[in-house]
């Protein structure tokens, strides 16, 4: 079943148009990676899907329902969570409070969920009552993932989860992403680290100039001759 579908999405910042009609599709339980050169519109696509940027033309469907132009709050309520690339924790709140903020719109008792989520990330669990501003880069990324999981989303949008992390941390973050996916959450991530991310993805899209360039399974993209050209060149 298709969880998320974006059809011919056109969007941008203010007057400037960055996406000129991009389509992606995410099936249930999939990891989908979006790669492409700088300025191709990868992050813009995520932001538009999540309702942070207005969708000028095209449609976004989530779970078969048209959610074009809905606000982030609505998206979060429907079960889509988004982790921005940077500044993705509240630095002056403790780890625990960060997670509570992740569950802000939940009306039920979310305390068991906090324990459950923290169990996934042992080294964040250790620093449960420290302020998030004092965590290391990798721990922050973990916390950001944990925060997004608090709503038990059916799909997670990740904007460059491995950006500016040390290599061993990158590995750890990717393994966590795989864990999350195995628990049944579909994942869409935008990545610069094409090789590593495509390795663990089911499918991938390559964007260039705000348009779809290539799509296929993770392996097929890695083997593709044109992939080198598309990713390295514009």
């Amino acid at each position, binding site marked *: 079943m298709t969880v998320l579908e974006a059809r011919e999405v056109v969007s941008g910042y203010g*007057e*400037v148009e960055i996406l000129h009609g991009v389509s992606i599709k995410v099936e249930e339980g999939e990891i989908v990676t979006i790669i492409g*050169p*700088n*300025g*191709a519109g990868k992050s813009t696509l995520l932001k538009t899907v999540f309702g942070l940027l207005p969708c000028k033309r095209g449609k976004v469907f989530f779970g078969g329902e048209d959610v074009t132009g809905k606000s982030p709050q609505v998206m979060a309520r429907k079960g889509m969570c988004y982790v921005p690339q940077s500044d993705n924790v509240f630095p002056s709140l403790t780890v625990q409070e960060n997670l509570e903020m992740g569950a802000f719109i939940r009306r039920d008792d979310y305390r068991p969920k906090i324990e459950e989520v923290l169990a996934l990330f042992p080294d964040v669990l250790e620093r449960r009552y420290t302020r998030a501003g004092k965590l290391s880069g990798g721990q922050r990324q973990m916390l950001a993932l944990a925060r997004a999981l608090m709503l038990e989303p059916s799909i997670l949008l990740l904007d460059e989860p491995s950006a500016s992390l040390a290599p061993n941390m990158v590995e750890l973050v990717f393994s966590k992403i795989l864990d999350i996916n195995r628990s049944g959450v579909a994942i869409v991530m935008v990545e610069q680290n094409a*090789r590593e991310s495509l390795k663990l993805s089911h499918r991938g899209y390559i964007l260039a*100039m705000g348009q779809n360039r290539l799509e296929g399974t993770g392996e097929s993209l*890695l*083997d593709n001759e044109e*992939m*080198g*050209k598309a*990713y*390295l*060149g*514009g």
Partner: protein
Amino acid sequence: MTVLENLMLVPGEQLGEKLWGPWLLPFLVRRQERAIQEKALEVLDFVDLWHLRNEFAGNLSSGQKKLLELARTLMCDPQLVLLDEPGAGVNPTLMKRLVAAIEELCYEKGITFFIIEHDMDLVTRLCNPVIVLGEGEKIAEGMPEEIKADERVLEAYLGGQYQ
């Protein structure tokens, strides 16, 4: 600021940049302004932004902004220009123009370019010696054809195990 003003800002040591300049020596300032404007328009013509000279720079597309940035550097008669990813986010039409502009500047005016870029098309077309960096080290150096054949370069870009 309009595109033209952006360029006219660049030259240093302008007499009119002292507040007393425009008050006490308007004629000299005017002459200087004319010269600067002429040069700015020439540079704008060169990068094909002349028709946008009175447009606000904020309204330009990102590709046009790249051209404007190049134009800004040209305003101070450089001998060496450093470009950080000139090709990123530029559409093919503008890219052609950019490449043509760089070529002309390089071969006709003798300006040296030092370009950081990951678009191999652009690199092959423009650059004579290419230096490839990977994980903080120099991996290879040479002409584009040599580079393209280099094992380690291919590995650094796409991962050796898939080649």
